[in-house]
């Protein structure tokens, strides 16, 4: 294992110190770990907060800033953050307009954010948790923990962050976030494993000419293993899985602020259809160079064109990664005018910036 790190116990802290030094517009808390906008809480504005295991940078800390997240809670590498972080972070950014937690659907994250929501609720903070579960590699929700939250997270943080900036209230932000999730689908592939510093060796072994299709973002094994094929074939496999994905139904737990309890809510995502406008994200798992992502994008653009799916915006680069893993993921999120307007709105974060 060769990495630019110091002590293994500081692999989360040290980059946070770097973030603090590089970005005076952010405020970094070391105990517990969280990153917030230095100007938070912003009076009257809903605070949008996310978090998850570290190792997916720039997600989430790199997306804290004007027009996107108010706060981010990094856990240990590939390990969900803990409720005390989310609670402290939520307290730090709440202006009174409430806190929206955007939660990737991994058991640890879900349970921690649920606990944090309860804690904030008992303090009188209006709070809501919205799940991202967009990974079509997971086929059913009944016999699994449900689809994992992957690339759509980035799109959701941007769109909902802009809406909060524009004055949407907590319920409006939550509704929009739910819509982004229901409009988004992703799938990824790994060419190599990554190495969690504390483990010291690769999370899984792949043969010299093998790849893992349907990989998650924590080095957890994917859907199937097969020989490496061409970029065009890989792009086609991922794009077709996403575009041909049938309606997906699952039960999510959302917080009922009035009753102070969790309620089950059944949600079904409609498949993509010809004529849809989409935002396309071609994302690096960390170790794959940009040139290879553009190779994938070239094929994706062609497939979408053939199927009359209109890519109206795109993002190509490392946005939700798995340490130094080689591989990529494709995310397509259907957009309407409301979503597109918020996508185009100004944003200024370490990892995503335009208009300002």
């Amino acid at each position, binding site marked *: 294992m060769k990495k630019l790190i110091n002590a293994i116990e500081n692999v989360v802290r040290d980059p946070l110190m770097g973030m603090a030094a590089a970005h005076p517009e952010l405020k970094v808390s070391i105990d517990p770990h969280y990153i917030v906008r230095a100007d938070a809480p912003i009076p009257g504005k809903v605070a949008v907060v996310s978090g998850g295991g570290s190792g997916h940078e720039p997600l989430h800390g790199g997306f804290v800033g004007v027009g996107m997240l108010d706060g981010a809670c990094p856990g240990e590498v590939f*390990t969900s*953050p*803990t*409720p005390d972080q989310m609670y402290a972070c939520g307290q730090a950014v709440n202006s009174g307009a409430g806190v929206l937690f955007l939660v990737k659907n991994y*058991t*640890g994250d879900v*349970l921690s954010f649920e606990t944090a929501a309860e804690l904030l609720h008992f303090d009188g903070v209006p709070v809501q948790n919205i799940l991202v579960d967009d990974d079509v590699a*997971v086929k059913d929700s009944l016999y699994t923990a449900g689809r994992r939250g992957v690339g759509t997270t980035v799109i959701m943080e941007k769109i909902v962050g802009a809406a909060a900036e524009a004055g949407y209230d907590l319920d409006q932000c939550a509704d929009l976030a739910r819509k982004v999730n229901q409009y988004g689908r992703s799938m990824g592939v790994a060419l190599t494993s990554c190495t*969690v510093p504390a483990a010291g060796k690769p999370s899984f072994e792949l043969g010299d000419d093998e790849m893992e299709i349907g990989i998650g973002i924590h080095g957890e094994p994917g859907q199937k293993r097969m020989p490496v094929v061409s970029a065009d074939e890989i792009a086609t496999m991922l794009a077709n899985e996403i575009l041909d994905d049938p309606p997906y139904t699952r039960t999510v737990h959302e917080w009922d602020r009035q009753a102070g309890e969790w309620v089950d809510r059944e949600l079904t995502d409609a498949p993509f259809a010809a004529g849809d406008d989409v935002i396309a994200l071609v994302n690096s798992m960390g170790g794959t160079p940009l040139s290879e992502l553009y190779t994938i994008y070239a094929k994706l653009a062609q497939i979408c064109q053939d199927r009359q799916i209109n890519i109206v915006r795109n993002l190509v680069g490392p946005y939700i990664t798995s340490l130094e893993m080689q591989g990529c993921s494709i995310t397509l999120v259907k957009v309407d005018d409301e979503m597109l307007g918020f996508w185009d709105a100004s944003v200024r974060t370490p990892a995503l910036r335009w208009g300002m």
Partner: protein
Amino acid sequence: MTVTKAQIIDWLGKSAAVLEENKAYLTELDGPIGDSDHGVNIARGFGAVAENLPDVADQDIGSILKMTAMTLMSKVGGASGMLYGNFFLRAAMGVNGKETLSADDLNKLLEVGVGGIVQRGRAVVGDKTMIDAWTPALAAFQSSLTAGREITAAMRACVDAAEQGMKDTIPLQARKGRASYLGERSIGHQDPGATSTYLILNALLEAIEA
């Protein structure tokens, strides 16, 4: 026979020790069907618990377990951190204010603790999770007591059942947690959380027997 506060403290210390010892093993179990962090997570958490123990040693058992819960929740991360955290949080409520535990108190501790895991994690037996160790372990403990056995004997039955439950996870296909994403590929591997559960229950037995 009762379980003393010293034994509870010993239990938590022994858990920390045995989880540290088995850190690599548990992390390895979490490789093929998880994300290779269970041992690291849980050893970090119980290590912190052990460090905090002296500060609460003169408080009641409920407070000690609450400290354990809060420490696990803030130090472990991951699914298991929340679930073990919830176990100890509920357990603490179940034995609030106690300085020693009767057989019934210990039963309550385990029962509400396991209830906490189920309430948060919503797993059932057969899902290939720690619940596959906890649920039969609790049942064995309870039927032992019902059959008139002593705490130590009941705990021995409890640990045996946990061990069996742990082993029984091997042929199962996971339906909860990270392992569930593997579908059939999760078959043939022992669940790391069920394994740490067995180790923690065994530490309790050893503390009681000591």
